């Protein structure tokens, strides 16, 4: 991308060519941050739900002034000759030029009365683009109709997963949204395992890859470099989680992590959700013996009771007590405090568990508990509380060798 930017910059300034970026990411503002870091000012469109139905990225395409594709899948080396091979060429005006398609929501809604999966999916697609500020519940509803009618349609499953995760990151969030997203993304990939973009969406939230693959480690370098340039990096709506970095952040690395169990006899008073609610998502949620599973836990202060974190004391600690023979990548996880005295942000912890080779199929609970300092109401009392958590994982039998 920076190569294309460098090669096209002068041609853009001379008005000979325009460039538009399309981002195939669940959180497109991260790509905007990337472009800001690289000082690339291209208009950027988001295709989080893969409405373009593409298998992989990156993809660079040359389109003439009439909207006709002239070169597809351009390699990076093509930038050297693009002025001669494409920009300076004259192309014939086609007999008909397709107009821009703005979704006609009333017509698409009316078309769903036909009761076809295609009509419902098209309506969901349109809602995702033009459904207003918070369309995700309606988008999910439309795609669910489509999925019921055509459960084997991978695109619907992938888009449904994306819509669930979008809602999870919005104010309309439902506690199971992240797990539902994982379930539908997984179904999509089972239907079509060749979809690289779909595969990466799951990997982004799943167990660390053997490398481990640094999905978003560049964000730290980008922010540091932009700060040194005196720029303010764009704020991200959703910060990358632990699974999306190859290495832990400075705050996590510096946190005081307990090495002995902090409440072995269970003496700390329980919070049953009055102050802090908890959401769990496992990626993958269904595993076979020998698999690793990444567990995401999100703790949210109850805004109705004005509960808030007390940041003048120790950070939230999660102690993990896996079943016998299950192994974990860590025994305790810490979610660092915010830099202010009090705060109400959600706090996440992530960890990985490995299903033992001898594990029988069934639903397995992975127990653990969080300890945190929480205060009620404004200037209300503060307490130290424990929240017990059982993460349910489905373990299925490993497919027999050679069985398809």
């Amino acid at each position: 991308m920076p190569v294309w930017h460098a090669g096209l910059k002068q041609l853009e300034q001379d008005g000979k060519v325009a460039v538009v970026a399309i981002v195939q990411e669940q959180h497109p503002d991260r790509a905007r941050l990337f472009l800001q870091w690289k000082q690339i000012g291209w208009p950027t469109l988001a295709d989080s739900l893969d409405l373009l139905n593409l298998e992989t990225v990156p993809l660079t395409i040359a389109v003439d002034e009439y909207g006709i594709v002239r070169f597809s899948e351009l390699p990076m080396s093509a930038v050297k000759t693009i002025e001669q091979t494409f920009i300076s060429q004259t192309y014939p005006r086609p007999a008909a030029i397709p107009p821009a398609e703005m979704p006609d929501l009333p017509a698409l809604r009316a078309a769903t009365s036909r009761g076809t999966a295609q009509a419902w999916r098209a309506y969901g697609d349109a809602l995702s683009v033009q459904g207003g500020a918070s369309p995700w519940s309606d988008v999910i509803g439309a795609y669910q109709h489509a999925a019921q009618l055509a459960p084997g349609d991978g695109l619907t499953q992938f888009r449904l997963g994306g819509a669930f995760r979008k809602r999870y990151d919005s104010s309309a969030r439902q506690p199971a949204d992240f797990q539902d997203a994982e379930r539908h993304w997984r179904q999509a990939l089972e239907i079509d395992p060749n979809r690289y973009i779909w595969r990466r969406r799951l990997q982004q939230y799943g167990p660390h890859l053997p490398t481990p693959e640094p999905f978003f480690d560049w964000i730290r370098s980008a922010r540091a470099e932009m700060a040194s340039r005196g720029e303010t990096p764009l704020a991200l709506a959703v910060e990358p989680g632990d699974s999306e970095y190859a290495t832990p952040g400075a705050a996590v690395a510096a946190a005081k992590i307990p090495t002995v169990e902090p409440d072995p006899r269970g003496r700390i008073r329980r919070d049953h959700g009055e102050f802090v609610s908890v959401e769990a998502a496992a990626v993958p949620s269904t595993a076979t013996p020998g698999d690793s599973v990444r567990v995401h836990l999100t703790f949210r202060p109850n805004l109705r009771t004005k509960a808030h974190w007390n940041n003048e004391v120790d950070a939230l600690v999660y102690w993990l007590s896996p079943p016998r023979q299950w192994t974990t990548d860590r025994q305790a996880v810490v979610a660092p405090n915010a830099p202010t005295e009090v705060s109400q942000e959600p706090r996440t912890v992530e960890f990985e568990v490995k299903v033992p080779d001898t594990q029988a199929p069934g639903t397995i609970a992975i127990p653990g508990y969080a300890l945190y300092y929480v205060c009620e109401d404004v200037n209300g009392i503060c307490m130290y509380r424990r929240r017990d958590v059982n993460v349910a994982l489905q373990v299925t039998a490993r497919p027999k060798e050679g069985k398809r």
Partner: protein
Amino acid sequence: MRASVIRWLSTAVAVLALGAGVASQPKPKAIWERNAPLPRGFNPGEAFPTIALPSAADGRPVSVAEFRGKKLIVNIFASW
């Protein structure tokens, strides 16, 4: 005698067929040619899709068709 001639001929035919297979093996394709065919609207000679996508900056629906009138490079990517 007759059986051994048949065996010899079979072996010779197999070796020739193998040799011909190696000789006619196509040159490996570049990686971007080995994926599934691109969907309609992404291949030379086709009209690029005109559907609207949300602007990453403000969510406003924008169609790539709005950039017509100039040569256009469409760069589809992910920052990961």
